[in-house]
């Protein structure tokens, strides 16, 4: 039971239930929900947005933020498609270069945060504009069309209802979970997020943890950007422009605390499943697509308010020492 509680926290159980109910209701009301094609499309969106959410979660687990996930994803997609389309660089080379660029962008974020000790919100807001600006400066907001077939066909490839992309996301999610729970550096990263004073006094490698979290964030953003490019069949400069909200929605609804120390991988997965269900449900009932944004906002508020009421163990623990009755966690 102890083990189970550690692995499946209350938030995740609640989300799982909501997800299941949502799927049942949706398939009852709109049978085409279960059609191969619908599941494929929904699964493909989910595969991309889940990586976006995990890119935020890993930085949140450190008690920091990354507002530049979307612009990293966009920049990477542009560089990759540009290399392939304009310069005829072989696909594997272009993709590897793009992913390395994503990691480099993350490292830049990490170094800035570690060196200056300035609020990661402002720093990554600044870098997000730098990355997005480079993207626009290169493309002048015009896509790179006609990326090589093997890339764009990967975006359409499926096995029955399951998109090939899902395999990438599943593998990366498992690797990330494994890293956080099974690898020493992952544990150290969470320790730094959980209590940075204790981590420093214990001599844990704080710089390495910071850089690693931001590098992983950049890498996941790069993969998400690459997959969206494959799905669209072109290097769209707007890739990633709308990712800020989902990137926070996933981890926050999934139970992450802005103060750090928790990395609810399962919660984030289930939260993103819920968001995809809402997205797909609205399409299926032909509702206004703008409802998605509205409902995600409502969901974040609802989840956090609920979380405050009975999942506050860790927060209570922190409150004891800081004794701060009014105000916000900054």
């Amino acid at each position, binding site marked *: 039971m*102890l*083990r189970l509680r*550690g692995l499946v926290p209350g938030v995740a159980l609640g989300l799982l239930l909501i997800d299941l109910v949502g799927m049942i209701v949706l398939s009852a009301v709109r049978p085409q929900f279960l059609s191969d094609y619908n599941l494929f499309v929904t699964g493909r969106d989910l595969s991309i947005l889940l990586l976006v959410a995990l890119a935020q979660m890993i930085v949140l687990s450190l008690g920091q933020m990354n507002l530049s996930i979307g612009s990293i994803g966009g920049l990477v997609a542009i560089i990759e498609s540009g290399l392939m389309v304009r310069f005829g660089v072989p696909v594997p080379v272009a993709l590897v270069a793009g992913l390395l660029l994503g990691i480099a962008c993350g490292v830049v974020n990490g170094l800035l945060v570690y060196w200056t000790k300035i609020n990661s919100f402002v720093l990554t807001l600044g870098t997000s504009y730098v990355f997005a600006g480079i993207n626009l400066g290169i493309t002048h907001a015009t896509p790179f069309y006609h990326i090589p077939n093997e890339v764009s066909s990967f975006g359409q490839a499926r096995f029955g209802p399951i998109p090939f992309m899902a395999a990438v996301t599943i593998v990366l999610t498992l690797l990330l979970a494994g890293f956080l*729970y*099974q*690898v*020493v*550096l*992952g*544990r150290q990263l*969470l*320790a730094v997020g*959980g*209590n940075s*004073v*204790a*981590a*420093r*006094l*214990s*001599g*844990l490698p704080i710089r390495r943890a910071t850089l690693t979290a931001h590098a992983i964030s950049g890498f996941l953003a790069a993969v998400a950007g690459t997959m969206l490019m494959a799905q669209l069949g072109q290097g769209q400069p707007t890739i990633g422009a709308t990712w800020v909200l989902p990137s926070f929605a996933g981890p926050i609804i999934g139970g992450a605390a802005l103060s750090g*120390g*928790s990395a609810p991988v399962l919660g984030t997965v289930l939260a993103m499943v819920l968001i995809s269900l809402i997205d797909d449900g609205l399409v299926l009932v032909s509702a206004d697509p703008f409802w998605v944004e509205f409902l995600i906002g409502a969901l974040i508020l609802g989840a956090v308010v609920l979380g405050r009421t009975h999942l506050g*163990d*860790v927060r209570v*623990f*922190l409150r*004891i*020492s800081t004794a701060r009755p009014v105000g916000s966690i900054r």
Partner: protein
Amino acid sequence: MSAEPNPRTLEVRLEVSGIRKQFPGVVALDNVSFRLRAGEIHALLGENGAGKSTLIKILTGVYQPDEGEIRLDGTPVRFASPRAALAAGISVVHQERNLIPQFTVAENILLERIPTRGVQLVDHAAINRLARPWMDMVGVEAAPATPVAELSVAQMQLVEIAKALSLQAHILLMDEPTAAITPHEVGYLFRILGELRRRNVAIVFVSHKLEEVFELCDRVTVLRDGRNAASDVEMATINRDRLVTYMIGRAEVIAKLPPKPPAGEAVLEVAGLTTKGGDGALSLVLRRGEVLGLYGLVGAGRSNLAKTLVGEIKATGGEVRVRGAVTHIASFREALEKYRFGYVSEDRKEEGLILLHSVRANTSITIWRRLRLLGQWIARSIEDAAILPSLRELDVRSHSLSQSVGTLSGGNQQKVSIAKWLAAKADILIIDEPTVGIDIKTKNALHELIWDLAAKGKSILLISSDMPEVIRLSDRILVMRNHAIVGELPNDHQYDEMSEAIMARLS
């Protein structure tokens, strides 16, 4: 009294001599020496601000001494970082701060050297297996895989001890380990510490509770005002009175204060007050124009009582009357505006002042609402006119009213934090540890100011763990211990008799 005679010749493990540490404006430690033997529990005593925590920080590599020498097993050492001290076998046990709340007990114990299989893969089974013996050694009752956040404070402390032991610590610094745990848990902790002494661990025990020191410790070193008041004295050769004298010093510096008018009518009557914080039924009466001293060691529940009076902590029972009327104060704002209470916090930096802001803003913050013209406007001339008398009365020294409070000296900061209540015409002042971290001369000036305020008709509840201060300033003294008022003494300002009488109530 000492727990048991120790037949072994105890070898000196750690020897500190001639340590000096200076911070801007204050000498925290001056020529301090300290000697610690293997297999002893050595009490480190002193009032707040005496230099205990500075010494501990030097021993654990957080600070480096300006002068002096540290020898470990005879060899001179320098600890450049906490990590270096840790590596040399010196561990500190804090109350609960040094653990990762989300991690399991076992992971916390082995945090720096998580066992791995293959390349950097965490071996969770090994963590639990390897942590178990250390947990058993100190009696952590939870399973190794329990998240630390679910433990009690006492259990967290045991986890920290287990962690220290697993790091092969042979010197253990216990920083007020009993401050937040129940008597039953204290008993258990002491058994564990006794066991560690048998295993030849050298233990430094910092506490404000003298009973505990006599029960547990073999030797004692006392610091006062950054110097050794006593070093390396065997507990068996010393009695309680003597120890207290070492801690609080002689009353020689005390100059008599001028007479003031007799106290007037009761302005604050508290009867049977209880709080969630565990206060027993507390009762007291504060009269107009008097200083009522509330003496007790740290942790006796004095600040808790004060914060209950101003509405910060909820009372669960009892009655509070202000100027005769029964009241239920719900917030600072109500305390100030309806009942004219002022609360001078012991924590100037976090609760008393806004260091970033000017002297002006810090003093007038309590009266902005009253100064407003046309609903909102605060004219600077009116504002300054309203606060200047209070600042002058307290003799606050600053370049200008626009100087930021953070750049003032500690004494001037304290004066500003009193001045803001005077500006608001508060006439019941609760002053919590007014002179902690303030030098002797300024301390004297502050005492005269407080006395003067009472002579002018303010009613003052003075909370202090500084015995000479309480005896010098109070008209009457309440003695508090374990969240209960254990005595009320009329004060004749005779230090020796009064301190004896107070100590009698404390034991």
